């Protein structure tokens, strides 16, 4: 989500534990389990189930000056497990300097230890920054030791009920770049396969640290979960 540039505060230290080696599995709550049609057409990518208003929640954009939280809706629009890639849109609803909700397009890296490890390696995030942010997720603590050793390359995440990702906003969809907002940073994300909740922390060296993103899967007034799909040929 676009944020204003704010003052830095000193990040806190966290520590944790360890684990094994991996190949990546899907989770239908994230939508990657929506089945491909019988593969008669090559190069199929599949849409993600249940994201009419897939995830909804808030991002805490508080600063020393004031407490503030923006309502956020997130849609996951596409996913390519083989390359550890996903993407979607993020809509911030009550942005003070915007007349309308601000929508951005983001691309994500799934930490599958094959395509991407826990170490970011770009976006001005050092390994220490990575460890600090991942450690803010309770579900990360069993993995910490191995991640500190090798970025988690030898971890087996195939049966882990959480999916770790990085989301990076790429461009504004409905406003110009002169809107007074920035999308320079990225999110460390943890998705829970059991209840579909998402938590995340925004990282941007020029913004307040640890702005927290908290989302739950939504079901558009339905009594249950609904699925849809598309195919790119």
């Amino acid at each position: 989500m676009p944020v204003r540039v704010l003052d830095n505060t000193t990040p806190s230290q966290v520590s944790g534990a360890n684990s094994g080696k991996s190949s990546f599995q899907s989770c239908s709550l994230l939508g990657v389990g929506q089945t491909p049609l019988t593969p008669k057409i090559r190069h199929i990518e599949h849409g993600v189930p249940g994201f009419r208003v897939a995830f909804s929640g808030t991002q805490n954009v508080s600063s020393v000056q004031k407490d503030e939280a923006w309502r956020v809706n997130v849609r996951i629009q596409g996913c390519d497990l083989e390359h550890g890639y996903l993407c979607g849109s993020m809509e911030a609803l009550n942005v003070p300097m915007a007349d309308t909700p601000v929508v951005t397009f983001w691309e994500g890296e799934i930490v599958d230890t094959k395509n991407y490890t826990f170490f970011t390696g770009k976006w001005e995030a050092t390994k220490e920054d990575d460890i600090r942010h991942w450690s803010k997720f309770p579900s990360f603590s069993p993995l910490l030791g191995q991640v500190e050793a090798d970025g988690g390359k030898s971890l087996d995440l195939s049966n882990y009920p959480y999916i770790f990702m990085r989301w990076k906003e790429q461009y504004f969809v409905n406003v110009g770049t002169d809107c007074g907002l920035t999308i320079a940073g990225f999110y460390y994300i943890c998705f829970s396969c059991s209840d579909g909740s998402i938590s995340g922390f925004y990282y941007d060296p020029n913004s307040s640290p640890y702005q927290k993103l908290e989302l739950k899967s939504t079901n558009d007034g339905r009594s249950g979960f609904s699925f849809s799909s598309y195919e790119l040929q």
Partner: protein
Amino acid sequence: MPATPPSADHILRRLASSDSEIKFKAIREVKNQIIGNRTRKLSYIKLGVVPALVTALAQPDATSALIVQSVVALGSFACGLDAGVRAVLDAGAYPHLIRLVSAADYKVVDAAARSLRMIYQSKLAPKYDFEQDMQFLLSLLESRNENLTGLAASIVIHSCKIRDEQKVLCRTGALEKLIRLFDGSLSQRHSSLESLAAILKDNQEVVYEFVNIQNGRALSSLIELTKDRYSRTRLLACLCLICVTNSSCYLQDLGIKTKLIDVLLELLDDSGQVGDDASFAFSSLVEEKEDLQKLAFEANAIEKFYDHLQNHGLRPKRLEGIFLALSHLCSKLECCRSKFASFQVVNILVDALTHDDTNVRTAVCICLKSVSRSIKILSSGYFTNERIVAPLVRLLSDPSTCVQASALGAISNILVDFTPLRSTFTRCGGIKELVQLAKSMDSFIRLGAVCALKNMVFHAHKMCKDRIFMELTVSSLASLICDPEPYVQEEALALMCNFVDGSMDCVEYAFAGGGIILDAVQRLLQKTSKTGIGIQGMYLLSNIASGNETHKDTIMQLLFPQAENVPRSFFSQSLRSFDSRLRTSAVWVIVNLTSPASPGAFGRILKLRIVGIVSQIKRMANDPCMDVKLRARQALGQIITFGDS
């Protein structure tokens, strides 16, 4: 030369004359009149001149001079004209020409060889029997005569199509003879390279034999030929090397691959046929190979093809080749698609979409399909331009089904909901066209249309869904679910899934028409053995089960009409499926049926216990597939809130 064709009787009488001088002059006259004159050829064919020529050359007393004139005339009839080839073959000329290739008089030999080459340039040429007539072919290859070696190459290029034929040629030493011709004349070198490509193509065994000839020296010679000063030689050498890389583990090092890319990109600058063919060769090099596409990207291939597209008045063949090459380059890599999308190509695309040539229209649609295989590009609005959408929609009713199919592929992608494009598409009459194609007799077209509709309905506004639903009609949807083709059935279920996804009122689509859609779904799921259909069906039922009480109760009734047959029911079997995706999708139905927020959940859970489904779900709580396990536990968690038995 006479200004009008001679009368039938006159020319035929002269051709049948017993006076050899009259006959000779008549044959020569025919030969001279038909050179480069298609109309005259057709008119003589109609008159019956071709059989008369064959009769003339078959006479025992026919002189060499007469035979040469007859043979040349026959070759001229066959040159670039299928009707001519047919007439020559029907007149029984072929065995005579084959015989004459071994004549004593070199002029007769040359004429016969050239005429046979004309015939072998046509698809109508007789299939050569390599098993039976290999000695003759080998004797042609051993000849010093360029026309004879050229004839051998034409025969191989025309007739060597299947693995067994390739193996026979390999086994009998044809490869070695062809390799010797690398050092022959330019024409011989070209003929041998073309034949070699035909023998090597897609045949790992033959490639292995070739690579080991002369301890690899033949392969080295081939690689050297990619530096030859003649562009056609370089192209043909590349084609042979592409056959080697595509069919074996040889030539997989980076250096060779980079070299091939560089040579082919440089050959694009040739303004003649070599430049046309280079694009097609490039396509076969990079097709389905991500590593080669990456190398090509790094060699600025996209830019080079784009630069060529900028040239005005490109031949259709050239345009087709460029678009196909771009489609392969953009097929897997986002960087390639992004690079293409960064260029100003709208005018070029529009011209190609409205081109007279069918193959160009097909190729540009295939290219658009590749480029649009990107959510990032779709989200950016690249395809919102009505100037592209309108001609694409028109191509849905193109006279060529190839064009229709490829347009469907492109449209299917760009209809995925991330842009306002759907309104543009609707304004251009796209819905009507898609619905029409969904009724096509051609199952492939039908499939493509349903897939496109599915993408269009994905996350569409209710108003858009209403419009599509009305245009499609309930009975058509039910028919598609009952389609004879399983792939169409599967897509139709996915389309329904997308219809009923969204706001609560969308579930009502499944109940339209007095329930004929649900009836069709139930019948299909009861009889199908296809996992894909089962999975889509389960997600559709799951979507309906996420609705209100009536919706949920309908699903209960559909799944468990009779309590005693439940263990053998399709639903129960789905829960026990070997395929974890099917198990997952079936469990989702239970998750939605037992949603604690719904008032009737208790009653449904009771029934699910009675029919044994709850026990099945309990056993799935430790399913080896994490997704199944989590969903089963989610369902059980909901069931337990109503008390456990």
